[in-house]
């Protein structure tokens, strides 16, 4: 039985105390005891995670992240905070064949803990050189990560230093197995990071008077606005709780489960416990949040004002065509070539977004557009020599001014050599771009004459130089 195993490893004093408590309960409430009283008593309130040794974690508790180097973890018997032992993490070089970063969770191999009497996870840490650790936290168990909470960018120094991670709402942690989590990459330029070592000791949950003044936030404390369509779901972002820890503010990233969400109009927008908004009908609603229950409930700063403009206006469905008569880049109707991505996030590009799913239909959504490309350079040769036209549908999600433009540019045989060629057209010269409406373009391939023989299309660029920033694109294909 797993909970007995966990008990074995917990502090003896606590067990004695708990046994006494159960006895007292039995004595005084023997016949009125209800079933709901029982489960809570089963979960130990053990505070310690690692004090020179692991405490109550069982035998199988270390789970690395996907892509992380798995064998970075050991107990170092020659280093410790005022002791002879600590957890040692060897952060790998970025090019380590075993994995380019260090990251793992410590999950109790047994029953979870009742951490509701504590207000912070604390630990001591030092590193072989000053280093910024990406994440340290708790509540991650790879079984839903319901109560995940973590600090970002912790500065470790070569000296032992204490770190305090406030618990967003301890009342929520009644049977928590995910007691520790970290993620760290090397130091240096992207792709060339060099590894180092850090040590952790005295990892435990504490109730500290210096942790105070919680300020929960959603949308990072801002009043965000989102506009979409019926059936669309929008996750609330920027969830955190700022605590003042002995005079200094610390922002803890907090999972949606720590928050209570509410909507001003359920018929327009509902919001789940997972912090995901679903638009139900045309109209506007405001999503707000709080933390805690009853007298402890505290409103979160920030909100999300959502508007549903109604049913999503899908692009016209392309006609049936013989497979030989079409080369499709993006389509729900035709067989597509293999596309590497719909946004390469190139240097100097501000463009966000890419392919999204709206109620089962794929479309491309770009925001903050200056330039972006559909990248098909990984695919087998995309030969459109025999095609007569290029088709695409464009929907502009903002006012179109007379000077606004979208330039469509094709790159053939990408690589920068003498065989690379390019050609471009201005969409609005074929048909005006329209706000809130799909416009279909069928561009003769002869207008791309400067490309020569289009036998290896690698990139399709959309360039607006910021004149138009928010668009949908659908049905990108060549045909004859």
């Amino acid at each position, binding site marked *: 039985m797993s909970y007995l195993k966990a008990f074995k490893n917990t502090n003896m004093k606590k067990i004695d105390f708990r046994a006494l408590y159960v006895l007292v309960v039995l004595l005084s409430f023997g016949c009125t005891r209800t079933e709901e009283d029982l489960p809570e008593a089963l979960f130990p309130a053990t505070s310690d995670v690692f004090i020179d040794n692991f405490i109550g974690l069982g035998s199988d508790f270390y789970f690395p992240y996907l892509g992380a180097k798995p064998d970075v973890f050991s107990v170092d018997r020659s280093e410790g905070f*005022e002791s002879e032992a600590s957890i040692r993490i060897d952060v790998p070089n970025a090019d380590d064949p075993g994995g380019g970063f260090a990251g793992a969770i410590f999950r109790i191999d047994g029953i979870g803990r009742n951490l509701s009497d504590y207000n912070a996870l604390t630990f001591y840490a030092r590193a072989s050189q000053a280093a910024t650790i990406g994440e340290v936290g708790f509540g991650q168990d790879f079984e839903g990560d319901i109560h995940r909470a973590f600090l970002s960018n912790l500065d470790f120094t070569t000296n*032992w230093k204490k770190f305090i991670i406030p618990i967003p709402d301890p009342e929520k942690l009644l049977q928590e197995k995910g007691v520790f989590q970290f993620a760290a990459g090397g130091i240096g330029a992207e792709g060339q990071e060099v590894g180092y070592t850090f040590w952790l000791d005295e990892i435990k949950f504490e109730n500290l*008077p*210096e942790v*105070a*003044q919680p*300020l929960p936030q959603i949308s990072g404390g801002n009043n965000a606005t989102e506009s979409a369509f019926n059936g669309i779901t929008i996750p609330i972002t920027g969830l955190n709780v*700022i605590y*003042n820890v*002995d*005079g*200094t*503010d610390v922002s803890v990233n907090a999972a949606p489960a720590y928050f209570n969400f509410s909507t001003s109009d359920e018929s327009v927008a509902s919001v789940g416990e997972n912090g995901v908004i679903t638009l139900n009908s045309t109209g506007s609603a405001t999503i707000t949040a709080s933390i805690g229950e009853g007298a402890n409930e505290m409103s979160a700063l920030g909100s999300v004002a959502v508007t549903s403009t109604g049913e999503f206006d899908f692009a016209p469905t392309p006609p049936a065509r013989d497979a030989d008569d079409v080369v499709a880049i993006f389509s729900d109707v035709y067989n597509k070539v293999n596309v590497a991505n719909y946004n390469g996030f190139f240097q100097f590009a501000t463009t966000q977004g890419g392919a999204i799913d709206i109620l089962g239909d794929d479309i491309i959504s770009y925001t903050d557009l200056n330039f972006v490309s559909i990248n098909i350079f990984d695919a087998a040769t995309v030969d459109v020599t025999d095609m007569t036209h290029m088709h695409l549908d464009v929907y502009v999600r903002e006012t179109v001014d007379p000077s606004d433009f979208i330039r469509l540019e094709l790159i053939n045989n990408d690589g920068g050599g003498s065989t690379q060629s390019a050609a471009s057209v201005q969409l609005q010269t074929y048909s005006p771009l329209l706000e809130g409406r799909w416009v279909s373009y069928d561009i003769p391939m002869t207008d791309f004459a400067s490309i020569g023989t289009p036998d290896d299309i690698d990139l399709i660029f959309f360039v607006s130089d910021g004149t138009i920033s928010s668009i949908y694109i659908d049905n990108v294909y060549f045909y004859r």
Partner: protein
Amino acid sequence: MNSIKAYKKIIIASAAVVLTSTVMTGCDDSNELPDRDYTLVWEDTFDGSTGDAPNPANWTYDIGTGVDGWGNLELQYYTDRTENVSLDGTGNLLITALAEPFEGSNYTSARIKTQGLREQTYGRFEARLKTPFGQGLWPAFWMLGTDFEEVGWPQTGEIDIMELRGQQPRVISGSIHGPGYSAAEAITSDFEILDSRFDTEFHVFAVEWGPDFIDYFVDGRLYQQLTPESLPDPESWVFNNKDFFIILNVAVGGNYVGNPTDNTRFPQTMTIDYVRVYQ
């Protein structure tokens, strides 16, 4: 700080507390502090309706930025607006520092005083209050000599019953300033609370002041006793036989506390439950 050091500190602090409680609760021959037999002269419990100004029979205002930010390069503009100073309707006075452009300053706050209204020589002066918090906040409960306009500062004498740096919410200071011992050379002691913070709960700050002595208390714990012998020159004790008046304020930034940062939260409030003066 390593944990052994911290532990030592706690032991010392607890020892001090035990000693103090012995002193304070003895009330018999073993009592080292004489029973001063104080009786209440006046009090303000800040009862009234939400948004009311504090009782004008007790309180008046300092307005503006003084000279060089009240001598400390403080950043706030003091007003008598209810946004900055008002009753909360549940028996507290709120002094609120706001981050807002106002008359050339980037912050507003309030500084109220009993000058010309409630002035007294000697006695027990206490307030129960909760401080603001965060880098650059500087709440204070203090007293100045009524002759400061004639003799100037620091000759007039200043008794700081409670000052706090917002970035250290568990530490308050009690100080005196006078000729030869002012500003950075003030005679001062810190009191650190280990199991709470001054911004999360109410605490009682007091001095007992008489001829040749000023005793400092937090929550009834004596933590500092000042006499002329505490000074570099005992002759420069300026606290005998003259009236002082009370000041309550929340300053923002300046020499003592440093300036707020982007992480300092505003508004920030000092919540005062009562001020009591005994003789």
